[in-house]
């Protein structure tokens, strides 16, 4: 049973729900404070571990996940593959532009509920058949949102408040199937949509560099990851490289995710593959095409999943299967030698 933390659960409020969708995570800021007080590490200790350990210790069946990056850009692929390998089930997902990440978790049928802002597509590349199937066969309970409203839901959580007023979604079916609540501005009397804070059970973010304590730095656009990092109850960081704390201290202006937000750190070189990693390597469009093509037939999809995920022991073995350092060097050149 999927639990609904939406307005309809409350008795003493003057508001009534505007959207019919469910609220999958408790937006109560006091409960979040209690969690952050008791469960978040204050101690600056070595948090490095392995992907296997991180997924088995930090992600439980039924957890609600927020995946960082932007679908096929700066995504934590190694963690997503391991979620499939460990057969995690009944997860919830924040579909804030999820593309290849969503495709992977759909292929494993790992989730049963989803806040949908952008799901099932891979932008200009086409639609994922596995992802479509989750919706079209009714395997997932969905609530509609938009990219901005989901980002603001992270923002509300990061601020430590239980909602934010926004001006999008009004007047549309997106609003009707959201879990937003129309409210009046106490100062101007104008209409707003209140959106509930989103505190994911676990956030998973891939960064350019981190130290062993979790102090993390991102190069290029941060998308919504600084808020996701603050909103998440547990936070898993995968990093292109581990750097000494001394390096972080020499460049503190670059640190946007400080250690006390982070529960665990794993070094995963080329960890966003087949996604783009700004300034490091471009997305592997051939590999993404292979995924989309394989999905058209259950047998070819099964073969692809076996080849790249289920039969390999870790992410490094996956990288060797897609062409190893030779292919990765090509993608590195595509990224950095744009004008030769």
């Amino acid at each position: 049973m999927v639990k609904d933390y939406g307005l309809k659960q409350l008795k003493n409020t003057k508001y009534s729900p505007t959207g019919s969708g469910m609220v999958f995570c408790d937006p109560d800021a006091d409960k979040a404070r209690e969690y952050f007080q008791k469960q978040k590490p204050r101690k600056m200790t070595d948090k490095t571990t392995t992907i296997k350990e991180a997924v088995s210790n930090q992600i439980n069946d039924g957890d609600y996940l927020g995946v960082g990056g932007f679908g096929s850009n700066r995504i934590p692929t190694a963690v997503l593959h391991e979620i499939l390998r460990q057969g995690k089930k009944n997860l919830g997902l924040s579909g804030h532009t999820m593309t290849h990440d969503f495709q992977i978790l759909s292929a494993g049928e790992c989730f049963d509920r989803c806040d949908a802002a952008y799901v099932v597509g891979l932008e200009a590349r086409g639609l994922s058949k596995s992802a479509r199937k989750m919706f079209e066969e009714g395997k997932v309970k969905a609530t509609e949102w938009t990219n901005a409203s989901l980002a603001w839901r992270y923002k509300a959580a990061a601020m430590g408040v239980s909602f934010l007023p926004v001006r999008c979604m009004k007047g549309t079916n997106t609003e009707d199937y959201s879990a937003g609540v129309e409210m009046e501005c106490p100062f101007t009397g104008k209409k707003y949509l209140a959106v509930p804070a989103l505190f994911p059970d676990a956030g998973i973010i891939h960064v350019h560099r981190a130290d062993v304590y979790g102090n993390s730095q991102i190069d290029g656009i941060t998308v919504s990851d600084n808020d996701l990092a603050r909103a998440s109850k547990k936070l898993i960081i995968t990093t292109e490289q581990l750097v000494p704390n001394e390096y972080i201290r020499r460049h503190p202006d670059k640190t946007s995710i400080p250690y006390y937000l982070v529960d665990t750190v794993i070094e995963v070189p080329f960890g966003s593959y087949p996604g783009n990693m700004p300034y490091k390597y471009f997305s592997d469009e051939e590999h993404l095409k292979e995924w989309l093509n394989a999905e058209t037939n259950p047998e070819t999809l099964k073969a692809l999943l076996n080849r790249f995920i289920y039969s390999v022991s870790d992410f490094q073995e996956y990288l060797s299967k897609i062409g190893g350092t030779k292919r990765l060097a090509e993608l590195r050149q595509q990224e950095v030698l744009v004008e030769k």
Partner: protein
Amino acid sequence: MEYNQMELMISLASRYLEDDSVVVVGTGAPCAAAMLAQRLYSPKLMILFEAGGMGPMLPSMPISVGDSRTFYKGLAASSMLDIMEACQRGMVDYTFLGGAQIDRYGNINSTMIGSEYSSPKVRFPGSGGANDLASFCWKTMMITPQDPQRFTDNIDFITSPGYLTGLGAREEAGLPPGSGPYKVITNLCIIGFDEETKQMKVESMHPGVSKVKVEKNTGFPLLWADNLIESEPPRPNELKILREEVDPYLYVIGRD
């Protein structure tokens, strides 16, 4: 000069983006239009991408609105909320959207086909940033092929707001006043919106296109401008730059 429909639509769209204005674009045709405008008409056009890219010198068409091309030699590599909040604050003049269905008020469906939300016949990506951009940006444009299935009043899901049910409806719903659909550029004509009714009104017909053809490809009655004109076809310099600089691999203009 010979041209195809995609080249025509992109060229027409590029002429609307004036210098010193701000536009949020996605991938594909809208991005090509913005790149063409920047190279030919509006060198100081500020191009934003919803994932945080600001003012790039686009070396080629991005594949994703969040890939590293969207801030290549950019003015800033920012965040999604920085872009979306600029839109909500009223700083963004133009945006471009697309969808599977569009009705006479410019309401757009990019969520699903079917009658049951819980088990749609076809599930599409959903809003992404489209609803946000359609809600906040001053002028929303569309570049889309025109056919009666796409241009329909039987829209299965309103993902992003056009003029909703007509004059005043956006404001009544709580959307920022003065924003809304501006032009719909199709393979047949350019459509604006009637000031009184906020319904689609054809303003300009592409060369060789008849009224009957436009009507046949639209699932609802259209309004017609009194001073209906013929669209100016792509200019030679538009085609040259489009083919040689903007889209040399024909990712977008090859899709005709």
